[in-house]
């Protein structure tokens, strides 16, 4: 049994759906193959306890690219954004905690309580970020240049990137070059006195590398995330997936869930289709893979088809997952210390740079800390359909948790992780355990098994500078692969992970030429 398509997209996450929709809009017959029973990949909302749905493994939608939203016309399909960035509560053991707003005028009050000069500096910090944002976006949100290409077009592209850096003006350009290789701890220390503010700003820079705040190069990640951040999607990841799925369906994309690809079929170095777990074969001269690049090259493609050099590079791609996911079903919102009347939607633990660094330290020795850093999102505050009326869900990302836990991820180890999380949340929210109705724990190993994320890495590979400049490896950093018709389009390709949809949208430029024809079509 065999079916023929113009293009097959492996993976029904945000990037896969983006690529599929754009291909369908260009007139292709496209099928999306999702291994799980529902769409969404790392953004998928699942019923983890009867009557309670999770938010998605990744739950921060603030890096979703607006240019992709426009290209897919997602607003037509119900996508809406918050007007302002969602503030994040950094709770304290004693005291009211710190509520971190991105917008400086909103942040002013909370910061000045701690330090007047920090409030002023925060304004300047945001100004700096605003000034360098267009350049950072240009460098990281466009099709990656060919660093070693000798064609005039490559040189022109490289020149344009270099020129855009210079457009910043000498002072800002030098500052970007100075700051990028620094540790985020050093950078925020230059700006701010308040430890809790430093931690609040630094945390997003360190969660998806194998890094703590004292690791050099983490300022680069802060630059990237800050220059991309915008108000998040109303309704969270679930709403994003709904809009993406509707857009795909409207464009004519065929969606097949529960369809796990087990093999890529390759003939004379060209892709000819895929084989599913049930033995079914689908044919297409174009295959776009939004799955993890190591899963693609090391699991789905017969080993003897890769050159030694290619195989070595892709094997060395660093994808050490350091986050676990814990979902908590709660009968009510357990309020936080010192904030009895507030129900913040985002909460993150860690009141100092060293708190974060200590939480990271353990993972190097294949263990997790007794005080991990927790990123908590409460999706039920903006989508009450995820839980029974009045009930809530805490979607908790736990950093840093090793893939290679000493002794392995036994049931006991999972219980220890859960108890650690509950203990730590309870420190700030004493009513937590009383409200607890159900739980789900997913270790990095579970994430690998369930979602095909090699190493359990939620961003399909660490955000380290070398892996951001040339992602995943220099052999295939521009979406195309050694196999004709096979393309990357997931978080393991430029410009990396998170709910951005950017790799999925940029990959289209490699898959189709300027006239919108795929390589296979042009050669016909």
């Amino acid at each position, binding site marked *: 049994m065999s079916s023929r398509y113009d293009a097959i997209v492996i993976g029904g996450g945000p990037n896969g759906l983006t690529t599929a929709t754009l291909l369908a809009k260009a007139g292709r017959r496209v099928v999306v193959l999702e291994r799980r029973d529902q769409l969404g990949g790392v953004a998928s909302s699942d019923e983890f306890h009867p009557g309670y749905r999770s938010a998605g493994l990744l739950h921060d939608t603030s890096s979703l690219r607006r240019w992709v939203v426009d290209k897919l016309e997602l607003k037509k399909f119900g996508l809406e954004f918050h007007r302002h960035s969602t503030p994040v509560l950094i709770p304290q053991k004693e005291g009211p905690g710190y509520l971190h707003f991105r917008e400086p005028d909103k942040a002013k009050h909370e910061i000045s309580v701690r330090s007047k000069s920090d409030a002023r500096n925060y304004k300047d910090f945001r100004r700096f970020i605003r000034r360098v944002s267009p350049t950072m976006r240009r460098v990281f949100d466009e099709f990656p240049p060919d660093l*070693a290409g000798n064609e005039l077009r490559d040189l022109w592209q490289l020149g344009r990137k270099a020129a855009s850096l210079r457009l910043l003006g000498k002072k800002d350009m030098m500052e970007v070059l*100075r*700051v990028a290789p620094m540790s985020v701890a050093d950078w925020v220390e*230059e700006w701010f006195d308040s430890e809790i503010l430093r931690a609040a700003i630094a945390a997003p820079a360190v969660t998806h590398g194998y890094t703590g705040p004292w690791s050099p190069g983490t300022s680069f990640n802060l630059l990237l995330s800050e220059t991309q951040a915008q108000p998040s999607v109303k309704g969270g990841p679930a709403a994003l997936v709904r809009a993406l799925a509707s857009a795909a369906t409207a464009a004519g994309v065929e969606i097949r869930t529960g369809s796990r690809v087990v093999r890529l079929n390759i003939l004379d170095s060209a892709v000819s289709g895929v084989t599913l777990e049930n033995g079914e074969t689908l044919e297409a001269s174009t295959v776009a893979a939004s799955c993890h690049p190591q899963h693609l090259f090391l699991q789905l493609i017969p080993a003897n088809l890769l050159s030694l050099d290619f195989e070595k590079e892709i094997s060395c791609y660093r994808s050490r997952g350091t986050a676990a996911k814990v979902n908590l079903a709660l009968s009510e919102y357990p309020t936080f210390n010192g904030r009895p009347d507030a129900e913040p939607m985002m909460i993150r633990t860690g009141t100092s740079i060293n708190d974060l660094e200590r939480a990271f330290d353990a993972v*190097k020795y294949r263990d997790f800390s007794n005080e991990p850093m927790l990123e908590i999102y409460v999706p039920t505050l903006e989508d009450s359909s995820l839980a029974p009326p009045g009930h809530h869900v805490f979607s908790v990302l736990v950093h840093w948790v090793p893939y290679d836990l000493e002794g392995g991820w036994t049931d006991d180890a999972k219980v220890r992780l859960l108890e650690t999380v509950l203990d730590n949340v309870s420190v700030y929210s004493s009513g937590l355990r009383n409200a607890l109705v159900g739980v789900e724990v997913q270790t990095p190993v579970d994430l690998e098994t369930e979602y095909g994320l090699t190493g359990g890495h939620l961003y399909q590979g660490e955000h380290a500078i*070398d892996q951001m400049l040339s992602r995943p490896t*220099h052999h295939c950093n521009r979406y195309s692969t050694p196999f004709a018709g096979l393309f990357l389009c997931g978080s393991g390709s430029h410009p990396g992970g998170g709910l951005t949809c950017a790799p999925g949208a940029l990959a289209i430029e490699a898959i189709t030429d300027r006239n919108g024809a795929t390589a296979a079509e042009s050669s016909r």
Partner: protein
Amino acid sequence: MTRPNYDAVIIGAGHNGLICAAYLAKAGHKVLVLERRHLLGGAAVSEEVFPGFTFSVLSYVVSLLRPSIIRDLDLPAHGLELIPLETSFVPHVDGPGLCRWSDDAMSREEISRFSARDADTYPEFALTMTRAARFARSIIDSNAPNPASLDPRELLGLLRLGRSIQAEGAEFVDLQTKLLTMSAVDYLERWFESDALIAPMSVSGIIGTFLGVRSPSTAYVLLHHYMGEIDGAFRSWGFSKGGTGGVSLACASAAESYGAEIRIEAPVEKVLLENGRAQGVVLENGDEIAAKIVISNCDPRRTFLSLVGEDELDSDFVGQIRRYKYRGSSGKVNLAVDRLPVFPGRQGSAHLRGDIAIAPSVDYLERAYDEAKYGEFSKRPYINVVIPSVLDPSVAPPGQHVVSCFVQYAPYHLEAGADTWPLRREEFGDTVVETLAEYCPGFEDSILHRQVITPWDMEQEYGLTEGNIFQGELSLEQLLFQRPTAGWSRYATPIKDLWMCGSGTHPGGGIMGASGQLAAKSILDSGDL
């Protein structure tokens, strides 16, 4: 003020100051070098601390001393004699450890006891690194490129640099990026599987830094080990006969042979300024010495905040100098012993003819760093031991030996404050001896004398701010065109006629001498003399 007596006065007789002096004097200029201490050499100094025992007090191996300097200044004729290190030995508590030899076949045999695959990869790794090092070498041998300049010559230089990298191909671009940004351990794990090999190889990335072997950006210094070989001088890694001070003495002798004058016990209080120009210096005893130009071999903080004074500088620049990071992370313990240490499982002394690293595993090294991050010295530190008396008997009485221990991490900023170091000094010394005794039972009984130098002592006695042995962290944001700050990486300063020549300038660090040499070239090219 009267007519200057000197063309140039140099503050500090470290190896860079002396090399700079020698080049200027050789070009026919009248040069005076002023040294605060009673001995020449700065951090490259030999002292007979205990009768009969000459210690290389701080810097203990000569690394990457530029071959062009040795040639230009004819240093061998001035007494420089370098003795190459022959081995690199890592003892283990539970076995004979791993020794790498100058003979490749012997090294491979040792490595194969841990991993046959690693033994096979070892030569291939060396080849790749040598190729990459060729490129890095061109960077330490020339002025730092300046990406902010609009000068067409600069842009052309940058373009050429870019093209030369690009011409090597995508793989090479990728390799350089990885070396610059990855951690030493991550980079080595691309090649090797054996922890026993990766650990000692990774430590070259952390020497003198406040980083761990798993910290990003520590891979680059791995290249330094391969640079020596392409310099055509295997001896660029070695001991100097009579201790590290021998390098300084040879440089001083060369400088004097060209007519330079050197004064010891002549501490400088201030740089003399008139109308924003440097005119000379004032000594602590009040003497004024006039000179056309002043060159500081001190680190940037001392140079600008102490010797010049911030009132003379614009606030932006002062901010940059304040921001420049030091954070010394190492200490030194020098021991006089009555016999050679015995490592179980190793006979003879062949394995002692180089460096001995206490670096049994990556976890060990990383834990040492983790303790230091929070302001404590490592309870089980990384120690780099050398016993120069094995190769150079002149530094110890017959049958006795000098054991030099470079110890990391000893953070300058202890949790309780840097000034609590004097209270912890002996405890720190004990930690080092106890650690060594774990690998070398009975070692403590062989000790006749002990000298413990904490980062606090390095600052107080040797003028190394915050005890940083490189006059400032060698982190990417403090290298190349940003050393010490953007716009001032070419040895000139915002003060007219004041120049810098120390390790706090490009390329900085180690006994390379490149800073002193490049500074002299810049000064001669400027036409200010």
